[in-house]
């Protein structure tokens, strides 16, 4: 929900964007590349969610992305509705060197399509492609895997074991075609990215910007002085990591955002 107060601060169109995906796929790194054009190896895991903003120029419009970068750990899963419930865009991230992370991404997409704003623009991003690209400098692959990996999941990135520097393609567990086909079928934007090198990152956000129904947002912003759309929680039995959101749960969807 765009609050009236923050909406008045500047003329740009505010776009709420949420990042979702398994732990250690590089969500925070992806945002950090977009927002600060930086890369931090060995980033600490995100706890809860982190809020960042970045402006993005698109033709004659300025979009102001308000980004919720969420934690990938399972215990935070039940918090996700809080972040995506009024989001106009979502970037669902997986790690191209970890097949299971795509499965997790698919389940996020499913959840978004079921529960989020029906107009939400979803992009699927396969991150860490620097690990699977042959590079002219021979020793980059193995150490790179270390640095790109957020230290937040001890079991993440099975391909991380060094020694395969000679043939980086072998680290890839998710073929580009497979992910692309899935994205097309599910109606998602699709990118392969590297937060480490910056490859593909800007494209994610500019393509989302092109697809966002800006007029729609402007219209709904004007109307949304109150509470925004509420989404009932997925599965009432899921209690773990539960923040006391009783108030939100009991309200139905009032749909003023769409």
């Amino acid at each position, binding site marked *: *929900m*765009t*609050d009236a*107060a*923050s909406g008045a601060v500047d003329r740009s169109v505010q776009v709420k964007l949420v990042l979702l995906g398994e*732990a250690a796929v590089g969500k*925070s790194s992806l945002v*950090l590349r977009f*927002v*600060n054009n*930086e890369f*931090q190896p*060995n980033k*600490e*895991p*995100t*706890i*809860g*969610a*982190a*809020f*960042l*903003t970045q402006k993005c120029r698109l033709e004659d419009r300025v979009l102001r992305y308000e980004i*919720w*970068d969420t*934690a990938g*750990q*399972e*215990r*935070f899963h039940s*918090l996700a509705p*809080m972040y995506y419930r009024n989001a106009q865009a979502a970037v669902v991230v997986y790690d191209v060197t970890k097949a299971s992370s795509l499965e997790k991404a698919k389940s996020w997409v499913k959840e978004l399509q079921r529960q989020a704003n029906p107009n939400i623009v979803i992009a699927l991003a396969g991150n860490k492609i620097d690990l699977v690209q042959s590079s002219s400098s021979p020793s980059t692959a193995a150490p790179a895997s270390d640095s790109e990996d957020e*230290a*937040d*999941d*001890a079991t993440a990135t099975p391909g991380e074991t060094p020694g395969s520097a000679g043939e980086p393609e072998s680290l890839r567990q998710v073929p580009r075609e497979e992910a692309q086909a899935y994205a097309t079928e599910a109606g998602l934007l699709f990118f392969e990215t590297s937060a480490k090198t910056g490859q593909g990152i800007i494209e994610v956000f500019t393509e989302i910007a092109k697809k966002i129904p800006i007029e729609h947002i402007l219209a709904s912003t004007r109307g949304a002085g109150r509470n*925004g759309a509420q989404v009932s929680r997925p599965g009432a039995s899921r*209690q*773990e*990591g*539960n*923040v*006391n*959101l009783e*108030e*939100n749960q009991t309200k139905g969807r009032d749909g003023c955002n769409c």
Partner: protein
Amino acid sequence: MSLSDNNHPPFKPREYFVLTDAGKPVFTSRREDGDSDTLSCTMGLVQALLSVFIDDGDKLRSINSGELRITFLLRSPLYYVCASTWGEPESVTRTHLEYLHLQILSIVTAAQLRRIFERRTNFDLRRLLNGAEPFLFSLLSRLELDLAMSTSSLHCLQLDPNLRSRVADALVPITKMKDTLYIILIAGGRVVTLVRPRKHSIHPADIHVLVNTAHAPSIYNSPASASWIPVCLPKYDPATFVNAYISFLWKPEDNGIETSSNAESRGSSSSSRREDGRHPPNLSSDAAICLMCIGGGGEFETVRSWCDSVAQKLQSQGTLKVITDAMESGKTHYSVSQLAIPGLRHFVYKSRPDVQITFPTFEDPYDSRDEVRRIITMYQTVYDALHAKSGQSGPLKLQCIRTNKEIVMGWITQPFELYIVLSPRLPKTAVINAANAVTRWVKKEERNLLLRDAPVF
């Protein structure tokens, strides 16, 4: 007692273990210990030991072997263990274990723990705590030197009372923010002021857990302008999460570089930012200014825009600048020499009604890390005796320990507790006079030293 030895052995890092009552490892303070076999063995042994006693309807509290004491704390479904050779009273390591427990509860809640282990007794809790280890590491390094934690009180930032109330006025929430619990401004790792609802106050342990959480590397180092995290305040309500909005309004520029010389003497070790090393030097994260808004409501957009406006207000009023200037020029600390009391080297004064402490910086001869550790352990020894924390027959009003190096005296009255360290040559009357002089000085300065009259809503 070993503390009175002229040459105290070096302070070996204490070791901590957390396991489930099924013997599954949850946490170990041994970072470099990649050998999970050794760890499983240790956990198995601990579990066996504990269960022998539990079978007899008994509780194993501690094992002493020479210098080493192993303390156990049972908080079903978790067992906590600390091994220490520091010679501190048992209650000290027990308090550490209690804090570890509270920090874990802040991440998973007591209700959640109970539910999980009712369903599956052999659940691997590490799965749920994944990514939360840094909170536990930074807590442990805090516990080592934090006098406020060891006296279960609060150590507020020393500040001009008018400035403090100006900050407090800015922090009073708008009515639109439903279910707001606490709004806290923290500077230099210490509370500047705290705004709370009229109906309840905040337990110091909850504040320590919050401060530790906010300054842990995952939050402090985040490039984000704000973090929004679920946190359980175990003393407030161990069964539910509240939301914490955490925003750093100011961070020292020398990121990652050790802060000025008085960093150590503040007595609160900062969080372990670095991955390596069990006891990192004091880092600058605790020198930052942090705004926290704790509440049960999920309306983070409301909270965020309000916190933004608070930040802007503090900025435009110049309040933030005054605080950072005060911190950088050392005005938020004082030296024991300001009291001009002969033979007085250090003291800790606790105002009992305010549940707050104040103490000067640690200076010569207590200016090395090990000397600070030693003197803190002395304080803890006297504190333990006065409060009969380790099974003594009853509490005391006054205790005085004389070593070759110093005299340490503890004294409890209705309004305050005082612990003072003096030159060992001082006669008894001078000790008493010094204690009275300290209390008079604190009385005179208390408006700067203690947080009083913070607004409620």
